[in-house]
């Protein structure tokens, strides 16, 4: 059976050119960049050149790039590092209700440690309103963190406007750009972003490496203390092969971004139009146009997403869902709930995230398979148009089910 990978927001296939760029830094140039000898300088040169490429991808200065182990660490360093270094200025942080768990859970941790966090609501398409942000800013607000593009529904935030408001109040804005970097153009200078998180494996780079852009003048407390690597902000011998691969992925993204995104937008729109036309009672989650080129996210009435992901997997398609049943916590996606969906609607969601290697033929195969599998699950479902889910069905209590649903 031909397998079709539509889960590029989870991770992407490492580009062959990236692998080729990395190999010499394991086999020959294996030195420690901190060493004085020639082995060390070779490694250092590879790392410097990667730092320049990553900086260029977002129009930053190479000295403003801190390499980390990935998006989660970058987010932790930005939020905790900034909060602890600047706590004398205030204890209030603003973020959104649809952030990745790397931001969300870091903010919850800070709430337990003396900080106050405001979670801005989003509209039904997942957008943060600049006016709502402006109203939430207080005299003790020290940091604003709003993601560039959402990992589930792909909605792209008006970062330029949001960062402009932050700057006018003298507050730095951090953006988790893990899903956006390498896929959409980012210019931290003109957009007035103060910190930005990236991850290599989301755009055809290797896993285990990411970066935090930290604008000059921003003070952070390190998470890792040690030998003082990365300007003292991230001690640990650098992951040189990973960093070199990250640099190569950034280079490739810069040269291919416009052609790839045009291709992906065409595939995405074909996917969205096709699904909404072919599957009754199907809906798009997120904004129709202000979304990542590779993301489509649907919900289907009367079925549950994990079952759909499994059935589509049996037909060769790799997909993901925001259904509670797919997670260890058994909570439905906080992102879909923040859009105003009811839990039973969030359970019926399906995310498709395409990549540069996907083809129109694959989208056509998907559009043939999906309606059959939705219909198969609906035949098993007790619910239908003639027997809809009623609010407050008498046996519909969470206690009876053994766990409670999350209050948002």
């Amino acid at each position, binding site marked *: 059976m031909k397998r079709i990978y539509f889960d590029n927001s989870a991770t992407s296939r490492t580009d062959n050119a990236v692998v080729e760029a990395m190999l010499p830094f394991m086999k020959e140039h294996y030195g420690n960049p901190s060493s004085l000898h020639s082995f060390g300088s070779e490694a250092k040169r590879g790392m410097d050149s990667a730092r320049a490429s990553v900086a260029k991808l977002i129009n930053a200065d190479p000295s403003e790039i801190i390499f980390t182990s990935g998006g989660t660490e970058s987010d932790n360093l930005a939020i905790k590092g900034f909060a602890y270094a600047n706590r004398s200025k205030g204890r209030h942080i603003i973020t959104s209700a649809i952030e990745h768990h790397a931001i969300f859970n870091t903010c919850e941790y800070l709430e337990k440690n003396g900080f106050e966090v405001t979670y801005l609501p989003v509209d039904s398409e997942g957008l943060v309103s600049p006016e709502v942000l402006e109203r939430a800013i207080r005299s003790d607000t020290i940091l604003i963190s709003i993601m560039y593009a959402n990992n589930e529904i792909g909605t792209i935030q008006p970062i330029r406007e949001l960062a402009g408001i932050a700057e006018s109040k003298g507050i730095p804005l951090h953006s988790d750009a893990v899903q956006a970097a390498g896929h959409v153009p980012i210019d931290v200078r003109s957009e007035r972003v103060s910190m930005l998180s990236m991850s290599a494996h989301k755009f055809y780079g290797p896993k285990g490496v990411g970066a935090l852009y930290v604008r000059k003048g921003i003070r952070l407390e390190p998470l890792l203390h040690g030998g003082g690597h990365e300007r003292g902000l991230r001690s640990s011998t650098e992951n040189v092969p990973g960093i070199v691969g990250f640099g190569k992925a950034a280079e490739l993204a810069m040269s291919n971004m416009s052609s790839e995104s045009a291709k992906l937008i065409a595939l995405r729109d074909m996917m969205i139009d096709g699904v909404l036309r072919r599957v009754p009672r199907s809906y798009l989650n997120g904004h129709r146009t202000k979304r990542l080129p590779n993301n489509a996210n649907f919900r289907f009435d*009367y*079925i*549950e997403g*994990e*079952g759909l992901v*499994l*059935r589509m997997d*049996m037909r060769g398609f790799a997909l993901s869902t925001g*259904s*509670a*049943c*797919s997670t*260890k916590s*058994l909570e*439905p996606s906080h992102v879909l709930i923040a859009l105003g969906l*009811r*839990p*039973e609607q969030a*359970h019926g969601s399906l995310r498709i995230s395409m990549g540069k290697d996907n083809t129109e033929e694959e989208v056509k195969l998907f559009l043939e398979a999906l309606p059959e599998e939705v219909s198969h699950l609906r*035949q*098993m*479902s*007790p*619910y239908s148009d003639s027997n809809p*889910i009623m609010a407050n*069905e008498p*046996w*519909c*209590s*969470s206690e*009876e*089910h*053994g*766990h409670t*649903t999350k209050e948002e």
Partner: protein
Amino acid sequence: MYSDKVLEHFKNPRNVGEIPDADGVGKVGNPVCGDVMFIYIKVKDDIITDIKFKTLGCGAAIATSSMITEMAKGKTLDEAKKITRGDVADALDGLPPQKMHCSNLAADGLKAAIEDYEKRKASKQ
């Protein structure tokens, strides 16, 4: 994550459907949590002669529904009542830990259907 047996039952579920003139119907679960099961039984001389299910839920919810219909068919009501959640999970070569509670509703569904049958029978007498 799932055993081959769970996946096999999920792929080819047994006894899907409704029984319009069922002698007992059991409903368990909660759409808010994502799993809802309806079980329909026909009973003759205290033996479950036919059983069907309709389930909204994940792979585990559908596989346990399918499995319990196979386990209960032809059993006496007393035997059927003794089937536990653990028995269903064992028959499927186990379930992931986070699914043991939430999606393993089938034994409760069967019990609810039998109770419904007994209640109807008592009200007729």
